[in-house]
């Protein structure tokens, strides 16, 4: 397997447990990525990533250019923010964040008469950089993990001195039903994707490179392997079985390497780094074209949406504009989700902006979103079979109902990454994952409180 573009195995790999919900990808998987027309206003929350919010460096009334930095990172776990359009700073104020809170954001009035070419930023030459320079460049590019969590990419790539990365995996699984953004991105931006991997690997120096793709994305697998061969990129394309949650880091690692990440540890503890395909493309675009993270691909889809498709959207675009451009929401819509149907959050208002972590907007009709009556647990054990990390959701669910948080913690509820496979299979329609979320919140809060009290007592 020395040459590039090798497809790893005839038989797709996978992990044990998990579920296979209906895919619904055909709604949008064949629609090429379209560019969203520019709209009048953009709202850029300062906190779009995990970590400290960025710090504005522009003032009201100032002209800004597409790609220009408008906020600096505040500390290490924070990234820069850039203007997604040519325009004028209209306000720096509190605006509703997709998470429902009023949070500080920069509002830009778009310049109608600009052609909206990117004003390239000075990214530096990756061929002549050392790791710290690279890390700080990535931070300046405003790069975050585009899979959904929006964890600052440079933090992830900062490998501590005592650790090494032996395996680097690009995550192109996209196991959530409905979502096709990564699929299209791999097909249309394969070249950039591989370029991003090559740039990154100059610094993380992984011995093995993988792209993991579920086998329902045949075109992506084919295009990437062709490009890898022609670029002579030493990357292995790993077709994975179509199974949820195949895209979860832990599942992917277990599928490809057969290794498990110990509870409470990170992939790097077993010499693995995983990153999303979008992040790779973004790295390439920053270093080759000077374009920081100012736009991303979003699948706007669902049975209650006029025209499901994949859209290249400037960060900060009001969701309502995006949804309307995609044909609007039909009258039988029951619910709009941010993200996929399994892990996505129900969105109450659409006047909030698209942020770096927005991977999909899903409008479900009454039929798909039907709310079922909850019954008692019948101990059928389907949730136990579904849980990809071998927890006992049935037990945890019962503990949760009684509010036995400590007991739940003992039963490893903190390892749950909320894939919702358990809720999905539960015939009694018990909202298990929702219970776990609440529990995790309480447990975290308690831990923090104890930490605080301990510190005070010292």
């Amino acid at each position: 397997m020395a040459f590039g573009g090798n497809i790893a195995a005839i038989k797709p790999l996978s992990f044990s447990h998990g579920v296979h919900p209906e895919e619904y990808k055909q709604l949008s998987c064949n629609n090429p990525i379209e560019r969203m027309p520019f709209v009048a206003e953009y709202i850029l929350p300062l906190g779009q990533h995990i970590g400290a919010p960025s710090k504005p460096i522009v003032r009201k009334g100032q002209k800004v250019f597409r790609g220009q930095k408008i906020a600096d990172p505040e500390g290490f776990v924070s990234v820069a923010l850039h203007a997604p359009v040519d325009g004028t700073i209209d306000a720096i104020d509190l605006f509703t964040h997709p998470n429902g809170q009023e949070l500080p954001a920069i509002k830009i009035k778009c310049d109608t008469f600009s052609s909206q070419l990117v004003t390239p930023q000075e990214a530096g030459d990756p061929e002549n950089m050392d790791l710290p320079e690279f890390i700080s460049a990535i931070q300046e590019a405003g790069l975050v993990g585009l899979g959904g969590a929006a964890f600052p990419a440079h933090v992830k790539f900062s490998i501590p001195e005592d650790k090494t990365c032996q395996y680097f995996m690009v995550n192109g699984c996209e196991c959530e039903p409905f979502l096709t953004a990564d699929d299209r991105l791999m097909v249309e931006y394969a070249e950039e994707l591989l370029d991003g991997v090559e740039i990154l690997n100059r610094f993380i120096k992984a011995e093995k490179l993988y792209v993991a793709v579920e086998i329902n994305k045949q075109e992506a697998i084919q295009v990437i392997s062709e490009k890898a061969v022609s670029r002579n990129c030493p990357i292995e394309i790993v077709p994975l079985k179509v199974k949820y949650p195949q895209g979860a880091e832990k599942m992917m690692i277990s599928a490809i390497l057969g290794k498990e990440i110990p509870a409470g540890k990170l992939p790097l503890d077993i010499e693995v780094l995983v990153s999303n395909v979008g992040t790779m493309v973004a790295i390439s675009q920053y270093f080759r074209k000077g374009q920081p993270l100012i736009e991303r691909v979003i699948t706007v889809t669902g049975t209650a949406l006029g025209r499901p498709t994949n859209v290249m959207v400037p960060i900060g675009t009001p969701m309502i504009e995006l949804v309307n451009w995609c044909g609007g929401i039909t009258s039988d819509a029951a619910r709009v989700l941010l993200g996929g149907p399994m892990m996505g959050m129900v969105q109450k208002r659409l006047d909030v902006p698209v942020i770096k972590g927005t991977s999909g907007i899903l409008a479900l009709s009454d039929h798909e979103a039907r709310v079922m009556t909850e019954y008692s647990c019948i101990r059928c054990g389907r949730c136990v079979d579904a849980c990809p990390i071998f927890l006992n959701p049935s037990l945890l669910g019962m503990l949760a109902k009684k509010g036995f948080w400590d007991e739940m913690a003992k039963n490893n509820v903190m390892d749950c990454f909320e894939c919702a496979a358990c809720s999905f299979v539960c015939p009694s329609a018990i909202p298990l994952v929702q219970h776990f979320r609440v529990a995790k919140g309480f447990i975290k809060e308690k831990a923090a409180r104890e930490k605080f009290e301990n510190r005070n007592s010292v």
Partner: protein
Amino acid sequence: MDSGNKHTAKPELTWQRELQKIETSICEGVQLPDLPSEKHNVFGRPVLHQKADDLSYISGLAMSGLRTGALLDEAVFENSIKQIRAAVRQHLPLTITIDKSGSESLTSVSVTPVLLPFNSAVQFVSSTIQEAIDFALIAHRVAELALIPVFHQVAVRQNGEVVAVTKKQLTNFLGNADDLVESPTPSQKMIFGPQRRRIPQWFNYDYPAQLGARKDEKSLSLESAANQAYFSGHLKEIISDCFEEFENTAGRKHDFYNTYQAEESSYLLITTGQDIEGIIPVIEELRKQKVKLGIVNINVISPFPSSQIGKLISNKKAVTILEPLDEQSNWLAGKVRELASGLKHTPQIITGIYANSLITEDILASGTNMASGKPEEYFLCGTAFTQSASAFPKHQVMLQAIERDYPHLKKLNLTVKKSTGNSGPAKPEYPISHIVRQYKDQGAPFTQLSRFKDSTALFYQDGNADEIVADPFQAIPSVPAASASLRTMTGTRVALPIINSSKCTACGSCMVECPHSAIPSVAIGVENLIKSGMDIASATGVQIIGLLPMVKNLSKAASKVISDLGEDNLPESIESILVPAFDNLTAQMKLEGEKLVSAKTEFSSVMTALNKLPITLSDALYYHPEAQQKGSGELFFLAFDPNACTGCGLCAEACSDQAVEMLTETPELLSEIIKKMELWEKLPDTSSDTINRLLFDKEYDSFAALMLSRNFYHGITGGNQTDLDSQTKQFVHLISAVTESLVQPRYANLVREIDELANGLSENIHSILSESLPKENFDNIARAIGTTHEHKVPFHEIINNISGEDRLKQVDAGKIKRKIALLDLLRGLKWSLTDGPTGAGRARMGVSVSSNSRLGWADQYPYNPFNSPVVAQRDEFSPGLASGIVEGQLRYLLDNLKLIRKAKLEVKNKYLPKEHDKVIAALDWESLSDDERKLVPPVFLIGDQTLLSRSNTESLGRLLTSDKPVKVFILDDLISSPEDECFESLRTSELISVMGLKKAFIYQGSMASHQSMFDGLVEGVNSMSPALFRVFIPDPDSHRITSEGSLALHAIAFNSRAFPNLKFNPEKCKRFLNDGIRVDDNPSADKDWHTATIDYQENGEQRSLSFDVTWADWAFTLKNWESHFSVYEDKNGSAVHISKFILSDSQSGTPVIYRVKDDALVLYAVSDKVVEMTRAVGASWALFRELGGSLVKFPEKLKSRVKEELKEKYDAELAKLKAEYEIKLKTQEQEQVEAIRRKLRDKLVQLAGRKK
């Protein structure tokens, strides 16, 4: 496709010039765009020539047996279709070359050959200059042998060398028209006998016959059958013979078609009008790639060489026909398909369509397509419908929409450009001009300026017009308003103007002279300027608190600083006034500590905002008003628009104070100018009080006063590089400014009225609603409230709770609904007036431009300089079009006025639908009040002198009697050609016939007097009636004297009566025309000619001479009259100045004019034509004076004679006689006036072409 040896010293050739030379050398009658260069052809015969709009002239010559040739532009060709049909029928041996370059396209792309609808005529296509010349000769021979007209389409795309045809070759090949030749066909032998004249004299006094008889159907079918058999049937043979004969004579071989590798190949390309030499390398390239391709280029498209082509395609795998996109596209493919269908083995037939020219890529793609095994059977070259990606994000959005909705279009393009992908060009964008930024673009997409920029204008700006795809908008030749301001002239100019504000006197000449509206300005008081500075600073987030209460005192302190400075020590920027003023003020206020620090910080941010604004203190704007009232003086500031400025330097020329200077453009200078412009944008507009004051200031140019307002200044916008037409552009700019200034206040009044009506209506609705509530007895309300909780509740809850007997009064729901609907309509109307979809409010005028060369800037795609709706049309239709527009618009504007009328009644609660609906619905133009009529924006018809030509008389007359707000502007260059009819008097009489209609306001004048022009424009545009403006706009290119500039031309035109000043206001004309006519603005208005004095030296002595300036002096300046003046040595004293010559009855002596050359007096003898013209112009002037009443009142001579008679004869009966005298006097006067009137009327009737 290389143009050959580039090292030759010869100038580049254009086929038009070469072809005209050839035609002139062989023909006896030609119809060519340029005057024939030679008077005689090679056979020694004179060459007749007439410029005409059709072919009638040379058809007549051809009938008489003369050799004739024509080079027609498309318009004339189209006008001549009927005559051509007749010529074909009558066997006239015409040869007609059609020049399609020009017409609707801007860049003169050469002809794309099409099959013309004359089946039996011969049609040639040539594709190189050499072919164009050779085919012209062959065409004559073919036409003369076959007796069938030949049409020749020239598709030359590149200039090249031609091998000239010698005189001997010419005479050998064509022979003399008079020669007797063997009748070439058996049928001709039967018709003419064994011999005939080379060019038959179908029309001949010696053997008279009738031509062009109308035949019945039977005879007509016999005629066409016979034509087919006895004439067309011989064509192929005759043409072949002619090609052979030509080769024998000139040594060059031509044929029905050219081929390359056509016989040996498996695949064949068929084209017409292509230079095959240029294609050979491409074919070779393909053959290298194992694609066996050959090519056939067809030169004779009618009669089509069917058998040869049929043979060529018979052994091919596939054949691709490449032909131009035209209404008749597919004719070539049709012919080939027809041929193919008859073959045993049918090759695959593929059609490729190209828009204007084929490029290498198209040929390559056609070849590879054929050889691909699964070729596309129909495709388009050159024209891209989509591109897989655009570097420009917004363009990409549109492209993907097209691709989504029209997926099949992508397949039509074989030669889609390679995706420029995501690697966009990193171009810094130029700043968008002020005028564009105010646009809101809420109209339909096709009217959106930003959309137009991103899909079209952007690419023109960057010189990448190739990137534009055939998107749906391209199908609509509609350009959004003000698109010219999307353009930047940065990069095309070398110099930029700068202003020395201390030298500037704020006269505004530069603003007025600038044709590109590139010098916006403002007059602003000190206090307002400080406030603006504060606003600009706060917009960037700076907090201004401490400075606010100081503004008044600061501006007073500033006035003090200025008066202390004195007029000799003028400041250059606002800083040098405000900084000392601030220091003085803070010292006076004894500001200290923190307060002083914060005031200083705030002040310095204001100073930063004002960015060293250069200001001018002028008499008109600062010192005069300041002397009247302290604090009322205003500072003057002007900016240069870096996008619109072409660097032409007209502003520097116009500045008599040398305050404007042209400097070589540097990035620093440009950025300085951009900064000033951006600052100007942020300042408020000049107040209307200032402008009104200046309009009454006799010292101040009224045009300049208007230009001080940005709202009036930008009626037309944007720069373009047509400096030659800058004078017409400047004038249209002035018209638009005047109109803006007249119509905007009317709109403002209407908006005020609408506001009042809307307020009234809402009061109205409110009171109807409140009246239904109880006034004194609130029991029911109390009961209703009783059931709700004790906190704030919505009113409807209380009302809902009212029940049973407590019910409120009834309201008339229908009435309320009606009023609410009306209110909505009123608000909508207000929005249209103030904002509208563009954001700039309703346009203040409509424009119809007769497109001609001098107004080329007005309709040059993609840059529309107008802010108003505009239509560009060809002359002959424009008056009719303009009246259609006026009437059409009126329909909508009447609806607005009906709305106002209805609201006026409704607001008083007097509206009764049954009674008023009918009346209001019947409202028409005639029943409108003057005030209402003024709300209809005027429509301008702008064109050149051809508008006054005979063909327009009727439609122009109809337009000017229409009683509608339509204003006609005739921009006359007063250029005449000696060959023309005596047009001066013609145009004058057209003008007089318009006057005779007594409906239209008329002004004739020039920019020689700004004030007269301004008054004329204001009066005419403002008048209720239609108006006609004839304005002199010199065309410097046509004059011999250019050094003195256009001002000198203005003076000569004015003084020589070539262009007298004239005003006619029908509103003032109660009984007779002369009440409304004014000619007294002219020099020596009471005399025939104006007298001028020239100084010269004779024998070392200084002398001077006075003479009458006549039209001949004007003609002397014109290039095309040059040959009518010759230096005259007055040896025998027979020279008579032309003004005297035309007065003398005997006409003895030589008419001359006087000129001073090198300080010496030179006499020029003038031709008869000049005398004739001068006399005619004199007569026109006399007519004007007569009409104006200054020439003939009641003649004094007559009066005294009558008096004497009376005295002698009737001395005794004085009283009685007196009475009779009065009577006689009166009748005589009446008769006199009647006679003038009759004379006039006759003239008018005659001119209007109507029968008595």
